[in-house]
C-alpha cells in the first residue's frame, strides 16, 4: 500500500493534469478547436523557417521578407503562378527603344497606397533611387540604371548597357514602390548620400504605416516569432482573400507537418519533398513546382587546386551519375541540363544536358595517371532551404560516385556561413552550391560566365574561356527573338567549357490546406501573398 506522502504526490500530479486538461478544454471550446477555426475567422496561418531581417523594401534580400513584401508592396511588374513571364502590376505598359537602353513606363491610374495617396511617377523615382543610394544588400539591382519622371504617370528608365530583361528586374521585391511622401516624412531620402542620411528603416516596421500599395497592411513585424498582416481596407484592386495573415517562425519541418495536419496552420513552406509527397489527402494539397535554381559543383581553377586540371574537371563532369543523384534526392528533382533552369529561356531540352559515363571517366583518369587524386568537397551541412534537400546525403553520394572513378574525395562539411565564406573568398577546391536567382530570367545566370561573379569564385576569368565569355556577352545584349538562341548557345558552351558540374533542378514543395483555394510558388519569394485566394 502506498504511503501517505506518496498518495499526496500522486494526488497533486492528478490535480495538475486535471487542471491542465480543464484549461485546455475551456480554451478549445472557446476557440472552436484547432486551426480550422483560424481560417474560418479569416486568418491564414503560414509556417516558415524565418530568415527575416528587414521589411524596408530597399534592404530586402531574405526570403521571409520577400514573402511579407508580396502582401504589403507592389512592383511595376510581377510574376503570376510561377510563370517566368513578367506581367504589369503597377505599370500599365512599357515601351523600349531598339537598343533596349531606354524604357518608358506608363503607370496605371487607379493604384493607391494604403494611406490613400495615389501611386505616381514621383513615387517610382523616389523608390528606385532610394534603393540605389541606400547602398544596402540589394542596391546592385539598380547598377547602371537611371530613373527619371516624365510626367505624373510616366517614368523613363535608362540603362548603361542593353537591358532587354528590364521587366524581370522590375519584378524584384526591393524594387517595390513606396509612397515617397510618407517615407520622406519618416526620414527617408533618395539623395545620393542616402546611405548616411536615410533614417526611415524602422518606419516600415510600424503598424499600418500606409507606405505600400499591396492588398495587406502591416500589423506587426517580429523577425524572431511572427509577422502579422491585416487586410488593407483601402486596397485599390480586388478585395484581399483574408482578413489577417500570420506568418510564423517554425523552424522544424516535423513541427510544420504536425501544425498543418493538426489544422493549426494552412500553409507550410519548408516540408522536404520526400515527406510532403506522402501528405496528400482530402484535407491537404501538395504542390510541386519548378524551382529557378540549379544545384551545382564548383571546381576551382586556382593554381595548385587539384581541380585546376582539365582531365580532372572532365572526369568529374562525366563521372557523376546524375540519374542516381536524382534518385538519392528524390521527390520531384530532375537532372539539370545546364546552368539555365528549365523554366527560363535558353534552357536545354531534357536529354541534352551533361552525359554520365563513369567508365570513360575512370579510364580518362587512369590513362592520365591521375587515379587517386585527392580533392576536398566543401558544402553547407545545415543548408536545407532548397526543397529540404539534405546536403550531407548529397555530398556523401557524390563522394561515393567520384571515388568509384578513382578520385579520393574528402568531405568538408561546415555551417552555411563558414562554407559560403570560403566559397566567396575562392578558397574551396570543389564546392556544392545552388544560386538563388534575383529574377526568373536567364540573364541572372550570367554570373556563372567566365569573369562573372560566380566565375571569379572558381578563379575562371574571361580570358580563360574567351569564346564562352563572348557568347555570354552576346546573350546579355540580345533582344527580342534572338535572346533564346543566344542563351541556348551560351548554355551549351558552359556545359562544354565551364568548371562547373550542373547536377539537379530541385522542385519546390508547398503543402496547403485544401480549403486554400489557390496558392502557387513564386520564383522569387516562395509564395506571393497577394495571389492567394
Amino acid at each position, binding site marked *: 500500500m502506498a504511503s501517505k*506522502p506518496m498518495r499526496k*504526490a500522486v494526488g497533486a500530479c492528478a490535480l495538475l493534469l486535471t487542471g491542465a486538461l480543464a*484549461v485546455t478544454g475551456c480554451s478549445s471550446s472557446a476557440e472552436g478547436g484547432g486551426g480550422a477555426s483560424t481560417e474560418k475567422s479569416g486568418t491564414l496561418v503560414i509556417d516558415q523557417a524565418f530568415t527575416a*531581417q528587414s521589411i524596408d523594401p530597399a534592404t530586402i534580400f531574405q526570403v521571409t521578407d520577400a514573402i511579407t513584401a508580396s502582401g504589403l508592396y507592389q512592383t511595376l511588374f510581377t510574376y503570376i503562378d510561377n510563370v517566368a513571364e513578367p506581367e504589369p502590376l503597377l505599370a500599365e505598359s512599357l515601351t523600349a527603344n531598339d537598343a533596349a537602353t531606354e524604357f518608358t513606363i506608363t503607370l496605371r491610374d487607379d493604384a493607391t497606397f494604403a494611406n490613400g495617396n495615389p501611386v505616381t511617377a514621383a513615387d517610382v523615382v523616389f523608390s528606385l533611387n532610394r534603393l540605389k543610394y541606400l547602398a544596402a544588400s540589394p*542596391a546592385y539591382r539598380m547598377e547602371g540604371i537611371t530613373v527619371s519622371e516624365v510626367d505624373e504617370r510616366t517614368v523613363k528608365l535608362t540603362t548603361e548597357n542593353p537591358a532587354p530583361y528590364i521587366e524581370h528586374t522590375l519584378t524584384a521585391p526591393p524594387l517595390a514602390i513606396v509612397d515617397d511622401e510618407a517615407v520622406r516624412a519618416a526620414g527617408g531620402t533618395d539623395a545620393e548620400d542616402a546611405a548616411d542620411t536615410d533614417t526611415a528603416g524602422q518606419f516600415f516596421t510600424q503598424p499600418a504605416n500606409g507606405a505600400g500599395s499591396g492588398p495587406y497592411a502591416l500589423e506587426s513585424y517580429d523577425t524572431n516569432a*511572427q509577422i502579422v498582416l491585416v487586410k488593407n481596407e483601402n486596397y485599390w484592386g480586388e478585395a484581399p482573400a483574408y482578413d489577417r495573415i500570420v506568418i510564423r517562425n517554425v523552424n*522544424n519541418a516535423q513541427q510544420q507537418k504536425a501544425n498543418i495536419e493538426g489544422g493549426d496552420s494552412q500553409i507550410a513552406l519548408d516540408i522536404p519533398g520526400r515527406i510532403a509527397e506522402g501528405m496528400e489527402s482530402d484535407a491537404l494539397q501538395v504542390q510541386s513546382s519548378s524551382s529557378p535554381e540549379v544545384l551545382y559543383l564548383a571546381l576551382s581553377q586556382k593554381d595548385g587546386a587539384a581541380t585546376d586540371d582539365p582531365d580532372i574537371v572532365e572526369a568529374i563532369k562525366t563521372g557523376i551519375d546524375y540519374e542516381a543523384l536524382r534518385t538519392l534526392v528524390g521527390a520531384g528533382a530532375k537532372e539539370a541540363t545546364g546552368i539555365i533552369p528549365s523554366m527560363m529561356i535558353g534552357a536545354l531540352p531534357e536529354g541534352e544536358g551533361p552525359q554520365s559515363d563513369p567508365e570513360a571517366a575512370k579510364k580518362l583518369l587512369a590513362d592520365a595517371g591521375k587515379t587517386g587524386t585527392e580533392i576536398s568537397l566543401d558544402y553547407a551541412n545545415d543548408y536545407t532551404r532548397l526543397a529540404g534537400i539534405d546536403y550531407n546525403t548529397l555530398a556523401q553520394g557524390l563522394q561515393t560516385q567520384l571515388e568509384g572513378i578513382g578520385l579520393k574525395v574528402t568531405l568538408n562539411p561546415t555551417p552555411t556561413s563558414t562554407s559560403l565564406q570560403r566559397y566567396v573568398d575562392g578558397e574551396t577546391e570543389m564546392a556544392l552550391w545552388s544560386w538563388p536567382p534575383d529574377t526568373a530570367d536567364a540573364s541572372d545566370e550570367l554570373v556563372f560566365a567566365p569573369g562573372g561573379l560566380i566565375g571569379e569564385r572558381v578563379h575562371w576569368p574571361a580570358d580563360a574561356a574567351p569564346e564562352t565569355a563572348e557568347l555570354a556577352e552576346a546573350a546579355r545584349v540580345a533582344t527580342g527573338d534572338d535572346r533564346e538562341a543566344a542563351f541556348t548557345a551560351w548554355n551549351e558552351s558552359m556545359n562544354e567549357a565551364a568548371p562547373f558540374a550542373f547536377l539537379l533542378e530541385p522542385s519546390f514543395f508547398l503543402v496547403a490546406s485544401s480549403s486554400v483555394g489557390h496558392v502557387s510558388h513564386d520564383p522569387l519569394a516562395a509564395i506571393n501573398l497577394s495571389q492567394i485566394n
Partner: protein
Amino acid sequence: MTHTLSETGADVQTPAPASGGGGGYFRFVLRRIGTSIITLFGITLVSFGLGVLVPLRPETANLSQQALSNPAAVAAFREKFGLDLPVWEQYLRYLGGLFRGDLGISQQTGQPIAADLAKYAPATLELVLWATVLSVLIGVSLGIVAAYARNRWPDHLARVVSLVGVSLPTYWLALIGSTFFFRQLGWLPGSGRLDASDTPPPRVTGFMTIDTLLAGDMSAWGSAVAHLILPATILALSNLGMVLRFTRSAVLDGLNTDAVKAARVKGLPGRRVLMRYAVRSASSPIITVTALSFGFLLAATVYVEQIFAWGGLGQYAYRSATNLDVTAITGISVVIAVIFLAVNFTADLLASAFDPRIRLQ
C-alpha cells in the same frame, strides 16, 4: 554558504563559522555582489572572445551574395557594426556601452539589443517560471517519496522517472510531445503562445497569461494557458531528474541525522519525522536545486522554443548564433547570467533563512 555533493550525491552545507552579526551579513552580501560583478565581467570576456576568435565573418550571414562580392558593401557593413576595429577596441567599446546600459545594435534586427532582449525576455521567463514550478513541485514530491520508501518500489519508480528525464533529449521530448498531445490527441495546441486567430493583448508585462487577464479576454487567456502547458511540461521533464535525485539524496541524508534518530527513539510518527526533521533539514539544498533548475531551464529553453515557435530569448539566441551576431550573443549571455546570479543570490539568502544552522559571514 557553500554547497558540496556528498557521496550519496546530496548537497551538503559546509557550516560557516559563527555569525558576526549584522556586519557579517552585510559583508557577505557585499562579497556576493563583488563576485557577481567579476563573474559578469568574465562572461562578457568569454562570450565576446569566443565570438571573435572563431574565424567567421558576420557579413557572410547578413549580406546578399552579390553584396558579399562587393568590397565596398562589405566594408560598409563592417564599419557600421565596428567590426573593422581591432578586437581589443571592439571589446572595450562594448564594455563602455555596457556600463551605460547599451548592449549594442543587433545585426539581424537592426534594433538595440537591450530593446530586443526586453521584448523577448518575458516570453522565456514565463515559460521557464512555470517549468521550474512544475519540475520543483513534482521533483521534490517524488524525491521525498523515494527517500522515504528507499529501496522499495516507489523509490525504484522514481529512479526510473529520474533516469528517463535526464536521458531523453529535450528536443526529442518536445517533438514527441507535440506529435502526441497536439497532432494525435488534439488535447493541446501546437506552435506559438496564442492561437493565431486571437489578437494579442496590449503588452503590459509581456507575460501572455497575465496580459490576457489584464485585457479581460478570457478566451485569449485560455489559449495562452493551453499553449503554455506542453512546452512548460516538456521543459520541466528535462529537469525533473536532477531535482528528484537532489531531493532524494538530501532527504536521505536528513533521515540519517542524529535529530531524526532521536525523534524516532522518542516514538514520533514516521510521517512527522520525515516532514518536520528530514525534509526541513533538506530545505537548503532544495532551495539551491530550485535556483539551479531555473538557470538550467533558461539555457534548455532554446530547444523547446525552436520546436514550439515560442518567440522568446531561446529563438533569438538561436538566430543570433546562426547569423554570427556576436554582439547579440554576448548580450543574451549577460542577461541570462544576470538573471541566474540574481536567482542564486536570492536562493542563498532564502536558504540561510530556512536553515538556522547556517551562519553567514
